[in-house]
């Protein structure tokens, strides 16, 4: 872990490279396990959520195709404020989109993209959602 951090710091200007290295530091934890531990308690193991209090994750794929949707996926509180480093959060988000939401082809989120977006968490995601087609 320390070696990975030092390497990432050394190549700090190369964001893509540092993202790969930082992700590699946590690669031992499968995203399926991270989903269990950080998401499934509320969104449930299959991502279907609860009709009354927890939104489903199974219909997220269309958001990737519309303006503002990609940003919204990271800026919602559950993602933006998750107690995870962006290097862990990006592969977890990609896992949810691919395995839970069934998104077939999309540009995977990178650590730097997640890091940038989560700095601007949504204050009222329910109010912002209708603005996204």
């Amino acid at each position, binding site marked *: 872990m320390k070696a990975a951090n030092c390497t990432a710091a050394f190549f700090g200007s190369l964001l893509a490279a540092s993202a790969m290295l930082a992700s590699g530091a946590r690669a031992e934890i499968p995203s399926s396990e991270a989903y269990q531990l950080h998401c499934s308690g509320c969104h*449930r193991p299959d991502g279907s959520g609860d009709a009354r209090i927890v939104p489903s994750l199974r219909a997220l794929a269309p958001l990737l195709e519309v303006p503002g949707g990609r940003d919204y996926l990271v800026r919602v509180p559950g993602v933006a404020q998750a107690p995870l480093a962006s290097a862990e959060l990006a592969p977890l988000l990609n896992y949810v989109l691919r395995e839970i939401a069934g998104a077939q082809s999309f540009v995977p989120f990178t650590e730097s993209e997640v890091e940038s977006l989560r700095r601007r968490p949504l204050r009222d995601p329910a109010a912002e959602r209708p603005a996204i087609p």
Partner: protein
Amino acid sequence: MSRFDDGFEVWARGLARRTSRRSMLGRFAAFFVGASALPLLPVARASADSPPEPANPRVPAPSESIPGDAGDQTKCDYWRHCAIDGFLCACCGGSATTCPPGTEMSAVTWIGTCTNPADKKDYVISYNDCCGKGFCGRCGCNRNEGDRPEYHWYRSNDINWCAGAQSQSYHCSVALVVGQATEPQPEK
């Protein structure tokens, strides 16, 4: 009035001649035994023989094939109770993984990890509340390994997780093993 008294006396004396206190006791006994045997009648058996209800898709499927999974699930120090806060369902008519009859398992819950002393491995545990009845009141257990304050709400065992059930009345808690963990949860 005296004719009424005389008539009643004749009836009472006749009753005393025809019956005994022992027969009275016998009839009482027959009544109570009969009442207690009602659940054994075919009606009750028919419901017991019906196929088990399908697994509730709202809750995680427990993975219980754990080598060396030994311990008393009615005890607070049972390994998978490492972060439970409430009454153990195993003492309330259910088990460490099933809700007592008449209660519903909340689908929304919190997830943590516990170390199984038998194999020294960490397992992902889902702490689901059983809801729909008042407090069980037996086997209260408050262990907080990895528990966080309410501001970190999805790792907090102080929340009434019955919010995800039809009834918000908390009865007891179960601890489902949903998988093996690569490492203890980050908060430990």
